[in-house]
């Protein structure tokens, strides 16, 4: 972004060496971040005032069953050993068994994560498609009634409690108007009709060519996704507006206008081209937030995603599931960060 970046790139003896050190540096920072995340989650798991054994066996377990489980869960070993064992397992892709449903946590995550991924992706798409133009229009028409309306839309998005909006949305669009499907990912009649390939029902139904399943899934996802999309929209449109205002006041815009360029070209080819980079960060962040799983939306819409999975696990002291879920979400954040870094380079001509 600044001139120094340019100079640094110019100074590199060989571009390949540069890429290598950068890649190693990135890997190092991922490893450190993940280790820190694991450590904090692990510690929280240990200090929680819940006995994991009672969580598994129930309050009235016999002494023998309790002791056997104590050893089985490795709780007899020093905490540091437990932590190291855990890291070793995670590195091998083994998050252990869920304490509560006795299935591998990895399987659970593979089952619940696509639901969240689908919801977050569609939500973000809605947020971007509507939020960016709204922000641009608001900035261009700064101070007019258009700007005011955009502001109110965003403000409502920011400040309405999501569960309330979700319930009222359900009531109106599902209950009264019947335009959309109800809570859940898919109607009762379509459950398990298409073979699971990606776990994303929208994609799986297309692969299988089952269009009625696809449309049913669309009718179920559209409301919660719009709701989440509204929240991204609120954030994205406000950020877009302020980025645009900054650009619109710049001298090159005046120059462009003086040269007699059309207003459309001034806005989209000049000003907007310059806000793409910071906008990517904003969108990536908002996407990452949705991927974390929006617990309340998932609960209201009976959406079996990762947010409600981690919450349920946390409340039932299923620490393997909590740690597994947290690691996956953490890894996603890191990956999205790297991805948006790569996009920077793509969109920022100075980085090329």
């Amino acid at each position: 972004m600044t001139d120094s970046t340019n100079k640094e790139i110019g100074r590199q003896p060989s571009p390949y060496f540069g890429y290598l050190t950068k890649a190693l540096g990135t890997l190092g920072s991922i490893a450190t971040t993940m280790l820190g995340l694991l450590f904090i989650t692990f510690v929280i798991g240990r200090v929680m005032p819940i006995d994991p054994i009672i969580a598994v066996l129930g309050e009235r377990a016999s002494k023998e069953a309790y002791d056997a489980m104590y050893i089985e869960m490795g709780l007899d070993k020093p905490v540091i050993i437990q932590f190291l064992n855990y890291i070793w397992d995670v590195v091998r892709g083994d998050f252990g068994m869920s304490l509560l449903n006795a299935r591998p946590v990895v399987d659970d995550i593979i089952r619940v994560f696509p639901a969240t991924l689908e919801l977050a992706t569609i939500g973000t798409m809605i947020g971007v498609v509507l939020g960016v133009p709204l922000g641009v229009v608001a900035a261009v028409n700064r101070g007019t009634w258009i700007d005011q309306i955009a502001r109110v839309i965003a403000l409502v998005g920011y400040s309405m409690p999501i569960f309330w909006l979700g319930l009222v949305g359900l009531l109106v669009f599902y209950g009264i108007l019947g335009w959309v499907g109800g809570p859940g990912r898919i109607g009762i009649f379509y459950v398990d009709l298409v073979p699971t390939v990606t776990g994303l029902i929208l994609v799986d139904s297309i692969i299988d060519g089952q269009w009625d399943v696809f449309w049913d899934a669309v009718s179920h996802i559209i409301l919660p996704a719009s709701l989440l999309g509204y929240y991204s929209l609120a954030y994205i449109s406000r950020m877009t507006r302020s980025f645009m205002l900054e650009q619109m006041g710049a001298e090159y815009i005046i120059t462009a206008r003086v040269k007699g360029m059309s207003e459309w070209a001034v806005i989209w080819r000049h000003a907007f081209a310059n806000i793409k980079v910071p906008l990517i960060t904003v969108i990536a962040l908002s996407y990452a937030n949705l991927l974390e799983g929006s617990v309340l939306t998932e609960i209201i819409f009976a959406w079996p995603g990762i947010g409600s999975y981690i919450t349920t696990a946390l409340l039932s002291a299923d620490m393997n599931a909590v740690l597994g879920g947290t690691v996956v979400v953490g890894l996603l954040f890191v990956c999205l960060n790297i991805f948006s870094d790569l996009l920077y380079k793509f969109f920022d001509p100075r980085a090329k």
Partner: protein
Amino acid sequence: MTYVSKILTSTALGLTLAMSPVLAIAETPDNMLVIANRIDDITTLDPAESFEFAGSDVSRNVYGRLVNFDPLNLDAGYKPDLAASWTVSDDGKTITFTMRDGVKFHSGNPVSAEDAEFSLRRAVILNKTPSFILTQFGFTADNVATTIVANGNTLSITTDKRYATSFVLNCLTAVIGGIVDKKTVMANEVDGDMGNSWLKTNSAGSGAYKVVSWKPNDSVTLQSNPDFYQGAPAMKRVIVRHVQESATQRLLLEKGDIDVARNLNPEDVAGISGKDGIAVDSELRGRLMYMAFNQKHPELSKPKVRLALKYLPDYKGMQDSFLKGQYTIHQAFLPRTYLGAIDDKPFSLDVAKAKALMAEAGVSGFEIEVGVREAQERIEIAQSLQNSFAQVGVKLNITVGTAKQILTRYRARELDMYLGAWGPDYPDPQTNAGTFAFNPDNSDEKKATGLLAYRNAWDPGAMNQAVEAAVIEGDRDKRAKMYQDMQRQHQMESPFGVMFQKIEQTGRRANVKNLNLGGAITSVSYWPVTK
């Protein structure tokens, strides 16, 4: 979601609903039952291990048991199921079951005495959490080869001493008494686990339904067994969907996308009551809300003082306000629908009487600490008690803590008073009598922390013998009478003040008939359901 935000939501939703036109109704198919329920407590479907509500709901419909409750007549007590009849030896220690002919597992294998032998032995050997329900009769992994024995068409079980037949049979109606298909289960054995890890997610029963799938926190799908020995169920498929939020369940029910909503909060129940096409059922559950006084406390150990305190809770006021639709007044240690349960309610809010009793005891006032777990309704009960106790000069200091904090102190006999809930473990009166009224050694060294009487440092005296006698009384009616007498004495003398019994309100589409939720003693039955 916080409590306040819940109220806001419900109010907002209620208002909107009230003003909205009638919802367009979709309907589920005639041969399918769709239920919304919180099923996140299911940890396993293996009958030798399952011990939670939603898991018991599945088990009851999937596994036949030797004896079982008839869903259309729960009050009749256990009836023959996979065992057609049974005889009891003269010494009362051996029960010999004759198996019902012609019943098949879902696999097509016939249900034999050998399967029953395997299932009960397996439950003892695996030694999972609910295994105590069987092992309390003296069965151990070492002796099952001689105590649980199949012979041709019969199965004999021999207990370590004489027990009431009704006690043993009631216990066999629990989830752990489920009879599994030995051939199928052993074909799926891994590392000598007797099929435990396979049965966690699969089923091998002979009941009205078989498990198609269980997706944790998502759904349980059951398919009917057309060869069910009591006749093919009308509902071919039963789908239980995990829907956490009461308001969402209500909306699904009103819209007709589900047939039954199992977790409606009182606000939502009020909202749907009286609406066309919807019925609300109230079902008694086994959980009791009680207060208990530590007998190590000098004042609380005086009989008249503890009796006085039982006249102080505003039973009716609480039932009709914040406990509405969740708890109903009940004042004896056996939940209603249990063998020997009584409905006597000798106590009501009577400050004058409490004052008189305190005066007779020569006590004017004192200060005590009550331990309460951080659950909304318990804290509200504690606050209500705080008010009414103050009227006789008893200052109640409320300590709220996590389950672990409060239970640890309760078990260590450190609390002056405890306010909390107790749920029975198995469908026999002994489950509660053996803890509320039994404590043969009250010394600190004994550490019998599993017994509620011990936790309150109470020596039940002669009641210990009464409990032991009831456990071996062979005649079911006589035994019921013994518990009735015991509870009447317990109400007046013990340091326990049982206040409420849990009720659950279920919303259903009015066209759904014969849905029995199992009361306090068993679980839901889907097979009699018709639409």
